């Protein structure tokens, strides 16, 4: 039994999974409240990654940063979270709010339009080249956890730790604060919540802000650990995050976290033990199997529709 390989694969999978979980959370939250599949979510991640890259460039770049590394990374995260959050709010306000009472397909199409728009805007203004975070210049690859032969780069740990912190923070927010209760109520029954005096619009705006901020943060994390960003990256992460949200049970926050990790690990195991070529096929087949056998996802509640 090759333990080192196993642990390495688990680490790979957890890194990927953390990112997917962050994206899945945003999807899940928005779906829970609005019953809307936000296809533009992956592109918010992409914009967050570019914002982080912009901040990095302003503060001297990876080779010669003008602030200490930890502060630099924190600033990048904060900037991308704020930027991503506001982008999400803007998308909600202008693309989804007019369609609150329209047939379900309308906001979906609008989301596709927003996605198209964001991708090509970035392409138009910043070009098609891949941009690099050059993280290896920032943090040496040998800084990290060393266990025997195993090397775990500290940036991976940063990714996993940040993602988990944010997820725990979100969970606490939803379960313990008034806003969280309002979000749960709105997700359960929007009209009843409104009648109970909850300002539904504000809750929705806050949900979008939080979800998109998470996506923005995920974008920076992706840039840090995998290095390269370009205008098209949102599609893939959006798709996988999507998968994760659905597998975990869309609308459920622990489900999204679990789903993200599950998909990340599945991908890593498929690539490591079966074949890198067909890892996507395997992941999608898992998804389709889960959908057929348990349509509401692993943690989701079976949808009961009141007639």
């Amino acid at each position, binding site marked *: 039994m090759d333990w080192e390989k196993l642990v390495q694969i688990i680490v790979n999978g957890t890194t990927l999974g953390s990112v997917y979980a962050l994206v899945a959370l945003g999807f899940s939250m928005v779906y829970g409240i609005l019953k809307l*599949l936000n296809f533009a979510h992956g592109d918010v991640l992409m914009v967050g990654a570019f914002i982080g890259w912009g901040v990095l460039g302003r503060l001297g770049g990876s080779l010669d940063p003008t602030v200490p590394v930890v502060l630099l990374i924190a600033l990048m995260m904060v900037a991308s979270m704020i930027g991503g959050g506001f982008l999400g709010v803007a998308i909600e306000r202008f693309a989804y709010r007019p369609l609150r009472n329209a047939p379900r397909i309308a906001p979906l199409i609008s989301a596709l339009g927003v996605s198209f728009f964001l991708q090509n805007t970035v392409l138009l203004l910043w070009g098609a080249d891949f941009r690099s975070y050059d993280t290896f210049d920032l943090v040496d690859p040998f800084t990290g956890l060393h266990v025997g032969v195993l090397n775990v780069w500290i940036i991976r740990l940063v990714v996993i730790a940040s993602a988990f912190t944010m997820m725990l923070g979100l969970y606490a927010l939803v379960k313990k604060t008034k806003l969280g209760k309002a979000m749960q109520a709105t997700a359960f029954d929007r009209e009843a919540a409104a009648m109970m005096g909850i300002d539904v619009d504000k809750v929705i705006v806050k949900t979008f802000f939080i979800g998109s901020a998470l996506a923005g943060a995920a974008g920076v994390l992706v840039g840090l650990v995998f290095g390269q960003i370009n205008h098209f990256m949102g599609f893939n992460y959006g798709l996988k995050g999507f998968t994760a949200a659905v597998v975990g049970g869309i609308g459920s926050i622990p489900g999204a976290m679990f789903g993200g990790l599950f998909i990340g690990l599945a991908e890593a195991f498929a690539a490591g033990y079966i074949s890198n070529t067909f890892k996507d096929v395997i992941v999608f087949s898992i998804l389709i199997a889960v959908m057929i056998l348990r349509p509401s996802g692993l943690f989701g509640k079976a949808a009961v529709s009141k007639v």
Partner: protein
Amino acid sequence: MTDETQDLPEGPDAAARPRVGVDEWVERVAGGSEAGWQGALRARLERVPLWSKPIAFVLPLGLFPFFTGSDYWMQVGIDTLLFMLLALGLNVAVGWAGLLDLGYIAFYGFGAYGFAFLASGHFGLHWDGQWVIPIVVAATVLLGFLVGLPSRRLVGDYLAIVTLFFLQLFLTILLNADRLSIPFKGQVDFTRGPNGISDVDQLTLFGWRLDSLDDYFYIALAAFALVFVGLAFVNDSRTGRAWRSLREDSLAAELMSMPVNRLKLLAFAFGAGVAGLAGTIFSASQGSVFPANFDVTALITLYAMVILGGFGSLSGVAVGAIVINLALELLRTPEKASWIFFGLLLLTLPFVIRPLGRWLAVAVGTVVFGFVVRALSEQFWERGVEGTTPGLARIDRIVDGWVLVPADPDGLAKVGYLTLVAGVLGLTLLKGWWRTAAFVPVLYLAACVWENVMVGQPAVARYILIGAMLVALMASRPQGLFGTARVEIV
């Protein structure tokens, strides 16, 4: 005693109010609920007899090859016809049965590859078209059934997800099935991977070999006409009515003993069959087939066509396909793109700024504003007028003296673009005269951004316009041009 001057809370704005609409039956029977000449036109259009609609399409399209001798426009025509065919098929699943199928392009690809398998050098089979087409269409219908099977247990959005993933799965298989290791046989090259199948035969029907663009154009037209008429009959039949009931309220339909599951499968199958047919014609006319032909961009473009035309309406989606495909084609070249851009502005703005008088005021105001800004720039900011627009159309030459063309746009380009986006979004928030006044600088800024930034990269700019169009269309008229406004019963 309560204070009678107490402020009442503000009423909900238009978007938050429950949408009042009619269901389709009422709309069709009572008809004509829109005011003005648009309503009258629409009412008129809806009353035309069934047989006139295919003729209205086939007649001018049939004459099209005589208007143009150019191979390029014939190719565009074939592409448009194939998209129209696809739009008709997608309309069945999405428009009539209300099933959101995001994997539709996979059926198209399946049909194309199916034809390539049976009539090319890949497996050495060179069957005639009259055998290959029915076989491939039947196989695609079967695939549609299979894909539709999960739909029985899935509601709306879940179905969308599963079909989207089916598309990804299909693409991945196409791309990688050239090195399948099958035990006992070793490496098998099933789909030739990213290299595609490049020696697909020409279509041969009953001995007649199609080898010119005109031939393929007419075959595609014939297929379109046949499918159009066939689907129109289906729409009027019991199945069509059953689909409509499924779309409007699936629970009620089930209670009324509609075989809901069977209907869903049927919708998928019909749509898939039409896509398969389009795929075979595509494959034959191109002479080659690659996985990259069937990606998500094609899917979104197809959806844009169906949405613009108004899903649920056969002629609507066909018109949508024509409009979008032509617009995309014309927007691809810097020589023609500006015509489309300014034409679009001139066409759509009168519907946003009513009445006509106000629109004229805005137009004149924008022109004057532009010259004023330019004069000011010549005085105080010379850089603003030093450059020239990269646009190549005649209209660009004309406009060059009107917009600001800074010498090295770069950073300004980003600022200008983002300001424009903010401006357009801000416009949607304003009302009344403020809004009309704000239109002037925003329109001028739009012209400047177009001339400086977007016209030099028309391939990118057109997707930005498509994306923006989809959002704007959904916000203002979700039923598209020819659809009927629906209220969803939740």
